[in-house]
């Protein structure tokens, strides 16, 4: 890269550059709306909003859990719980009144689901990126996130390929809370977790920084808008696996051996344009929004960290595991934890407990994998 180009990246972009960037983003959204349909353009815009909010407010899911485990700082976890409570407060009445048009992120609790969530929790601490976090990290120039992303997608495809085998190990029927009583139970549950986190956390954890409040309001608003536009809650990992399934089919691969990928709905989605897949569009938007925000505040000039070879190996394996386990767990931190609890699914609560336990293990694995200095 030339010195002039480096200087342009390290300094804040000028007003004209920002205007051009915004016009380019608007043109892409408009183009998708015109060629695919207005709903799909709007979903891309919502995804961009998620990326801008997560990167702009420096908010995520992995970091707050890590700080809760290592430093007893409960503030980030508290912010997540408040955000889910806001989403639930709107989503429950919407789902109750419009059950034919809207659906929640409801999935069964099972052996593989619990194991998948535990493993996902460990892997997300190893790469310091969950479902949304890996996309945001990749978009904002984090090399670990960028390397993990394609392997996350491959793992998601493979996990979905084998999903029926795993669920046959043992699953309960889907349990979903609904209506006023369901919302009350959900809010009491979120309040109880928040109270426990504050009891265990260090004093002062209840004081949330202003950026957390910004993230809470932005993410909750976008998540509710997503439900209204798409008819389903925000999710991440289905789209990643779909991209790989499309490549497999395009090169002559046969998906008929998978009950999941050969199901009529998934076959149709593999054949249809990626610009009509809900999670693909919001995933594209997440990456694009994070990239835009990182560029906007001149955050792309810092050098990429140097890691030992075994650390990169760990990132690749963790990426595969993140993708595979998130399918077994019926979602990542977004599809299962955020959207699952936010729309009343009991599997979201079980996912949270299992993934948090996995995170405790993952936090302790990082030094031995060469991803951070031993203390």
């Amino acid at each position, binding site marked *: 890269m030339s010195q002039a180009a*480096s200087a342009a*990246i390290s300094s804040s972009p000028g007003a004209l550059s920002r205007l051009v960037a915004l016009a380019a983003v608007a043109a892409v959204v408009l183009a998708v*709306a015109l*060629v*695919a*349909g*207005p*709903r799909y353009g709007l979903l891309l815009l919502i995804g961009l909003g998620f990326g801008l909010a997560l990167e702009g407010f420096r908010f995520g899911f992995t970091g707050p859990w890590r700080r809760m485990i290592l430093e007893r700082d409960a503030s980030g976890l508290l912010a997540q719980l408040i955000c889910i409570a806001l989403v639930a407060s709107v989503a429950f009445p919407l789902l109750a009144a*419009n059950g034919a*048009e*809207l*659906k929640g*992120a*409801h*999935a*069964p609790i099972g052996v593989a689901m619990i194991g998948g969530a535990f493993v996902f929790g460990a892997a997300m601490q190893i790469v310091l990126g969950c479902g949304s976090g890996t996309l945001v990290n*990749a978009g*904002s*120039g*984090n*090399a670990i996130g*960028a390397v993990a*992303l*394609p392997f996350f997608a491959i793992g998601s495809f493979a996990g979905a390929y084998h*999903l*029926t085998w795993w669920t046959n190990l043992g699953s309960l029927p*889907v349990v979903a809370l609904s209506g006023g009583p369901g919302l009350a139970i959900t809010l009491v549950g979120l309040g109880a977790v928040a109270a426990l986190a504050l009891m265990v956390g260090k004093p002062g954890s209840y004081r949330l920084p202003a950026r957390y409040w910004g993230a809470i309001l932005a993410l909750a608003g976008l998540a509710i808008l997503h*439900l209204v*536009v*798409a*008819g*389903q*809650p925000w*999710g*991440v990992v*289905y789209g990643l696996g*779909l*991209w790989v399934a*499309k*490549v497999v089919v395009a090169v002559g691969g046969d998906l008929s051996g998978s009950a*999941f990928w050969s*199901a009529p709905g998934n076959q149709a*989605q593999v*054949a249809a*344009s*990626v*610009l009509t897949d*809900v*999670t693909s569009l919001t995933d*594209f938007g997440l*990456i*694009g929004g994070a*990239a835009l925000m990182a560029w906007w505040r001149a955050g792309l*000039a810092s050098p*990429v960290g140097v890691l030992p070879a075994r650390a990169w190996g760990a990132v690749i394996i963790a990426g595969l595991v993140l993708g595979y386990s*998130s399918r077994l767990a*019926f979602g990542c931190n977004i*599809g299962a934890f955020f959207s*699952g609890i936010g729309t009343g*699914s009991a599997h979201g609560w079980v996912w949270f407990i299992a993934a948090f336990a996995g995170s405790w293990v993952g936090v302790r694995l990082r030094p031995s994998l060469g991803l951070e200095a031993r203390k």
Partner: protein
Amino acid sequence: MIRAHVTGAVLVLIVGIVAFDAGTAEPLNPYTAPPMLALGSGMAAAGAHCAAPPPK
């Protein structure tokens, strides 16, 4: 290498996925697209989601 290189590579990957898909997937038809909002559309939600249970 700086972060801009990584972001650039990721954006190229995304554009590549969309371009590859445009050449292999069914053509788009905005006239058969669903309404902008699912809420109030009278149509059942049909999108795929990671929490959806697998087919029996």
